[in-house]
């Protein structure tokens, strides 16, 4: 397998008949088989993928292609409903669920001729930052520290999606991001992760976590590939009333890495003594690089940044407790018999959900319950307004904002803190972006002293994905990050 495979390069290889879709799909299926130790996939669609690849090859022969990317296999987070393919949200409660409908995002991929290799492991119902809450066990990060052989978390919740791209178990993947679930694992695995503006991509057919925050997006090896996949998945969908009617752009075609005259904001509230020196150094270096490339660096303030995480841990659990009320053992999923209807509900949900999901449902139920609703839920929504207006003000002064993606690089699976709040801090830099509904991207910048990837985050105003991708492309072109993990799982 060539590490240089991208959506862009594979489209050229297919076009020139250097490889067939069937050969390519077989190659990735082999990589998945050889990489089983990484635990990236919950379900491998071996048979279906090969049939779909043959069909793509036939379309190519008859010059009836669905798009330039017809025949390229990708990985799909196990949160997107896929017709006839088990969709579990990495939860016991959905472990037997086979949807008879297709999510809009995966339908859009199918309409472009992309082929699904299988369903990627994630935190249960996308709740987590380490992939450890999955009913199917942790995903292992393809990266290891040079100083230790211990296994590292890939981040989460789209941990399988990020690790699979990083370890070449797919060339690109679909993830979802409610508080950082695309950008944080991308940062931990040296991949590019894009969370689009709220409303840019349809949420229809995606297992819901927090409906006002959830967005689907690509995890890829390059900024160009992120633009290609965003082109394919985005756009208005009448089945999702919150999907935007704003016309989408041709992100890939319009990519332009010229940033001369742009203003890039550095928010002082993201500075911290606790930030690792190597992350701080990358952040400073990147700002200098953008300046050298013609941008102006502007110090800005986002005063309510530190309130974003506590507000998120009211709003997201509140919405989750409501969304997850549907898992009751009646219509689909697990049922555990009880003495009566209520007992059946309680036993089903107690056995079907893992600890973190239960914690969030309980907190969400609490903040929505009579007597606490105003003090917690409404309060958090007011804080959300303050956070949003911070960004509205900032984008009057700057085109884009540059921050670190995460407060640390990948850590050991065994070292996950036992206090849930300590874990929540992983998303401190990514959560405000979801609350404000903005697009954000994490791109790999450098490796730290342990040879682990450091990701930087760019943020732009709503529906300015083009500008976001353009600045990201400028950084990517300049630094030319080309580190890849050593494939220890092949030995």
């Amino acid at each position, binding site marked *: 397998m060539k590490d240089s495979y991208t959506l862009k390069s594979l489209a050229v290889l297919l076009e020139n008949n250097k490889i067939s879709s069937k050969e390519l799909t077989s190659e990735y299926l082999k990589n998945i088989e050889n990489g089983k130790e990484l635990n990236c996939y919950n379900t491998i669609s071996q048979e279906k993928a090969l049939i779909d690849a043959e069909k793509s090859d036939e379309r190519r022969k008859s010059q009836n292609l669905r798009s330039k990317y017809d025949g390229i296999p990708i990985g799909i987070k196990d949160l997107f409903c896929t017709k006839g393919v088990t969709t579990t949200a990495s939860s016991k409660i959905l472990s037997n669920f086979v949807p008879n409908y297709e999510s809009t995002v995966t339908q859009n991929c199918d309409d472009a001729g992309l082929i699904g290799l299988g369903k990627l492991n994630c935190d249960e119902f996308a709740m987590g930052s380490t992939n450890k809450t999955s009913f199917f066990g942790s995903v292992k990060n393809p990266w290891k520290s040079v100083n230790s052989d211990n296994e590292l978390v890939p981040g989460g919740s789209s941990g399988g999606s990020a690790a699979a791209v990083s370890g070449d178990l797919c060339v690109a993947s679909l993830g979802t991001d409610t508080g950082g679930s695309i950008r944080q694992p991308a940062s931990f695995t040296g991949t590019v992760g894009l969370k689009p503006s709220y409303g840019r991509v349809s949420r229809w057919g995606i297992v819901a976590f927090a409906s006002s925050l959830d967005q689907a997006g690509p995890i890829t090896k390059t900024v160009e590939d992120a633009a290609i996949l965003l082109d394919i998945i985005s756009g208005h969908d009448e089945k999702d009333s919150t999907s935007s009617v704003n016309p989408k752009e041709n992100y890939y075609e319009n990519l332009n890495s010229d940033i001369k005259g742009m203003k890039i904001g550095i928010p002082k509230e993201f500075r911290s003594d606790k930030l690792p020196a190597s992350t701080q150094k990358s952040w400073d270096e990147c700002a200098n690089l953008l300046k050298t490339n013609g941008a102006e660096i502007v110090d800005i303030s986002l005063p309510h940044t530190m309130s974003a995480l506590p507000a998120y841990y009211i709003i997201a659990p509140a919405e989750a407790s409501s969304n997850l009320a549907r898992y009751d053992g009646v219509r689909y999923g697990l049922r555990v018999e009880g003495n009566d*209807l209520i007992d059946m509900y309680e036993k089903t949900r107690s056995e079907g959900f893992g600890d973190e999901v239960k914690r969030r449902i309980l907190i969400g139920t609490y903040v929505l*319950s009579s007597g606490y609703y105003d003090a917690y839920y409404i309060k958090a929504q007011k*804080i959300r307004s303050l956070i949003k207006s911070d960004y509205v003000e900032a984008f009057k002064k700057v085109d884009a904002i540059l921050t670190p993606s995460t407060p640390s690089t990948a850590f050991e699976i065994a070292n996950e803190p036992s206090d*849930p709040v300590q874990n929540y801090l992983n998303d401190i830099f990514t959560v405000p972006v979801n*609350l404000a509904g903005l697009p954000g991207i994490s791109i790999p910048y450098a490796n730290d002293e342990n040879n682990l990837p450091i990701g930087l985050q760019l943020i732009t105003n709503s529906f300015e994905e083009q500008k976001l991708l353009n600045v990201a492309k400028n950084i990517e072109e300049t630094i030319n990050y080309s580190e890849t993990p050593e494939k220890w799982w092949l030995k």
Partner: protein
Amino acid sequence: MEFDKKSLLKLGKLARISISDDKLNNLSKDLNSILEFVDQLKEIKTDQVDPTSNSLNQKLEVRDDKVDTKNSAEDILENAPEKEMDFFVVPKVIE
């Protein structure tokens, strides 16, 4: 400390999640830790601020009221743990 055994069991009832005795201690510790964390918001003045429930500034569209044939009973029941004719089967509710 907001969550003790009694309030936690009540919360479990509201959320329809049974909580076993051996889980109570850890769970109340975790939930209290989360509550303490989110309680820091109390210090921020928000009297003059309107709440935001959704970041999208877009009027919700109303769809045309037309009949379609999607979502057949057969499709909807396909994943039911227990079904009979065109119905979901649940434990007896009325004596």
